[in-house]
């Protein structure tokens, strides 16, 4: 009995930190409508800065002062980020906001390694809370008891802040009705800045307060952000009470989940989240969110199937690519095969994101499932390669069918958070379920059979599959289904009022995209000869997003171009520098702020502009009802 109570208390202590971070995220979202993906990075920064300060400053005052100073310092960084970056993108589509803050996260990950080194850091114990208290025959760290008290205290302080101060009342008013506050003549800029600073302060404080409990390392950000997303999805984005209740719920599920399913405790959290999403899609305390403000696609000219010339150019490109083995060496062919595989991966995400308007931040889950599917079939069932390749992607399909069903209940930022959380769950399973997946060691020696062995043959195989998948996806884009899907993106209201079951369409699209990603993953397993949890990792999901973004979200063929350019660049980059995340993050931020249309989008704009004089007559000619092709 005593053991369970202590387990419960441990859960409560974790809940406090989780609550601090989640409430910060919620406050920022409530006012600015930005889901700050960099929140985990600020949490991590808080921990690192607090580590340094508490090491330098001595005594009890030094420790506690160091914690608060660290949170303040990070909050100032947050304010700078808001002023320099976020102010430029408040009116951008939410996808770009998510990506920009994600880019920041990547940069911070490399920066902390650059500053503090790659090793785990163990912080000081908190003065006055070093020992343990005996309760129910068990030892409970007294710092845990401090944290348990702290959570409700912070909740109370926040309540007072939001109900008793002018600033807090303004924030609440802005959360309810942004236009009204603007109309009252409140300086909206500074309201946003201060809110962002306050939210970051809470995140950094949460991180700083963790140092006596936990080692500081450079993967803290992703761990916390996934948990926080789960918390706000359950509690309801924008609600502080919801954040508190859900933080307790999630932390307790974690604490007891370890006892029930020691290997895959995360399943329990997932099940609860799934139930909440079905019963209350906007979380326990959340309010239904208005439809996404802006979808990609609004500013473009309607998509058109390839013209005759473009088709010829495409065919020539494929033929040239197929001739590569005549001139290229083995390394270049391996790179070529990898690029082909990533073209498949990017095209599958493009289908979901650009055509369906559903920006998945966890698309690697289905890529990785395809890879693991092949690994299971090849290693455990010992099936021939062609069968493995055909059936492996089915694991991606099943994963997409299950997670997709829940994810499409939501849209916009909720969809992004949820897909990310799902991917992280799949990753955890691959990582934790060692007997089946090999955990961190992965599954090794999955080699192609003779007919596909050797760099040239495997390259041809990858190229052929890539051409087939991209071609098929393109056909679907211009099929009735593709139009129905694009319709649900353009206007849900219109779709539902002409008999389209938007959810079924979106679910189907999710499954198609997941299966296509799985096909890429299957090939990838054979290319590398092994699978690892990294094949599901967030890094890979972000790569896919960047490929689509780089090529141009609002174009049909951008994903292909984006994948080729990105993959070639990043393979080169990794061979040149150790700080590829820093550069990649910087590139993401730069694209979002400076080149939101991507490569193909820019080419199209340029072509449209040079066509401008003749476009009028073209439109007239095309408008003649003559049933022309």
């Amino acid at each position, binding site marked *: 009995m005593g053991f369970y109570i202590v387990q419960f208390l441990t859960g409560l202590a974790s809940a406090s930190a989780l609550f601090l971070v989640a409430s910060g995220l919620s406050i920022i979202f409530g006012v600015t409508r930005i889901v700050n993906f960099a929140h985990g990075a600020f949490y991590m920064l808080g921990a690192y800065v607090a580590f340094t300060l508490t090491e330098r400053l001595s005594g009890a005052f030094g420790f506690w002062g160091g914690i608060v100073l660290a949170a303040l310092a990070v909050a100032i960084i947050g304010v700078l980020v808001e002023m320099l970056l976020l102010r430029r993108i408040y009116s951008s589509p939410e996808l770009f906001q998510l990506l920009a803050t994600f880019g920041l996260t990547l940069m911070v990950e490399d920066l902390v390694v650059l500053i503090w080194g790659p090793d785990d850091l163990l912080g000081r114990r908190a003065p006055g809370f070093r020992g343990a208290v005996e309760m129910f025959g068990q030892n409970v760290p007294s710092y845990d008891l401090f944290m348990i008290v702290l959570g409700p205290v912070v909740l109370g302080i926040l309540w007072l802040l939001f109900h008793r101060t002018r600033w807090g009342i303004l924030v609440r008013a802005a959360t309810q009705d942004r236009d009204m506050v603007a109309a009252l003549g409140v300086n909206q800029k500074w309201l946003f800045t201060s809110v962002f600073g306050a939210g970051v302060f809470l995140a950094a404080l949460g991180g700083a307060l963790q140092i006596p409990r936990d080692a500081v390392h450079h993967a803290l950000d992703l761990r916390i952000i996934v948990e926080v997303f789960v918390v706000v999805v359950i509690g309801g984005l924008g609600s502080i009470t919801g954040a508190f209740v859900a933080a307790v719920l999630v932390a307790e599920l974690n604490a007891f989940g370890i006892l029930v399913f020691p290997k895959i405790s995360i399943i329990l959290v997932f099940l609860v989240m799934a139930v909440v999403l079905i019963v209350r899609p906007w979380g326990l305390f959340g309010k239904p969110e208005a439809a996404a403000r802006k979808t990609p696609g609004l500013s473009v000219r*309607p998509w058109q199937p390839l013209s005759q010339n473009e088709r010829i150019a495409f065919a020539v490109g494929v033929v040239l690519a197929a001739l590569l083995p005549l001139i290229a060496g083995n390394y270049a062919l391996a790179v070529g095969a990898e690029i082909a595989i990533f073209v498949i991966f990017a095209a599958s995400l493009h289908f979901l994101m650009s055509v369906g308007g559903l920006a998945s931040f966890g698309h690697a889950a289905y890529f990785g499932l395809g890879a693991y599917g092949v690994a299971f079939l090849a290693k455990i069932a010992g099936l021939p390669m062609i069968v493995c390749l055909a059936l492996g992607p089915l694991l991606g399909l099943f994963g997409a069918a299950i997670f997709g069903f829940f994810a499409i209940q939501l849209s916009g930022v909720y969809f992004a958070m949820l897909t990310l959380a799902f991917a992280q769950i799949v990753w955890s399973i691959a990582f934790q379920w060692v007997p089946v997946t090999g955990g961190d060691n992965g599954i090794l020696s999955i080699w192609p059979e003779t007919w596909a062995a050797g760099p040239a043959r495997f390259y041809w195989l990858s190229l052929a599959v890539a051409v087939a998948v991209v071609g098929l996806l393109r056909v679907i884009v211009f099929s009735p289904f593709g139009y129905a899907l694009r*319709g649900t993106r353009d206007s849900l209201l219109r779709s539902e*009022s002409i*008999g389209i079951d938007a959810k079924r369409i979106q679910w189907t699209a999710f499954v198609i995209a997941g299966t296509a990603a799985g096909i890429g993953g299957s090939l990838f397993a054979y290319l590398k000869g092994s699978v690892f949890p990294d094949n599901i990792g967030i890094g890979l999901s972000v790569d896919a997003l960047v490929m689509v973004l780089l090529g141009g979200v609002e174009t049909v063929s951008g994903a292909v171009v984006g994948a080729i350019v990105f993959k070639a660049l990043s393979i080169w980059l990794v061979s040149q520098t150790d700080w590829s995340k820093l550069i990649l993050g910087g590139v993401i931020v730069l694209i979002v702020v400076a080149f939101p249309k991507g490569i193909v989008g820019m080419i199209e704009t340029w072509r449209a502009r040079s066509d401008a004089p003749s476009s009028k007559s073209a439109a007239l000619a095309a*408008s003649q009802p003559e049933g022309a092709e």
Partner: protein
Amino acid sequence: MSEAPRLLFVEGLNKSYGGVHAVRNVSFSVAPGEILALIGPNGAGKTTCFNMLNGQTPADSGRVVLRGQDISGKQPREVWRLGVGRTFQITATYSSMTVRENVQVALISFQSKLFSMLNATQRFANDEADRLLGLVGMEGYAARPCGELAYGDLKRLELAIALANDPKLLLMDEPTAGMAPRERVELMRLTAQIAREKEIGVLFTEHDMDVVFEHADRIIVLNRGAIISEGSPDQVRNDPQVKAVYLGDGLVFGHAEAHA
């Protein structure tokens, strides 16, 4: 009127938003081929009524019966499949598609080809789409990007889309807003003609009283969510209560253009 066969029958609809009683105990019916105008000042509850008829908004209480079938609580897409087309006060169209493609998507849905993945939409029901566009006078716009259309043209496009499923009932929320006076008359004349030919019941809201009095067979006047008057154009025109509401609102019949 109750002797006429009923196409749509609405009984005791209510809807509140917080403290605002947007629609109070509204009952009426529409006969096949009948053109019924639902008028009233801003905020009277017209759009809310429409939304409850096609399932967009759940009613707090009341019943909606379409051709003998109770459709209360059904989803908009189910109501559409039963033969109800609608246009929106604030137009909702697919801005990343051409005008023709907008109509094609409705036709795809109507012909249950939504999950067809290997055919080209480009070749799907082009003639039918162009015929519908022709009906509303938009044949010349078929290849235009929908995002470029003027507001009045979007309204006409919405009508073409609403006609795609061969509806029995048309719900048109301010169909002529944003159009020049001549266009208004033309569009309503066309709507009336289609309605008579195909026995389609039309329920529409409109702030332009010229349009209303010229084209409506019957008029219902809403004020603050409740029906205050109902009858032929002449009856309604001479109803002192209606006059009071409209004069109180600063609007005068025949010049009711103050609406934005």
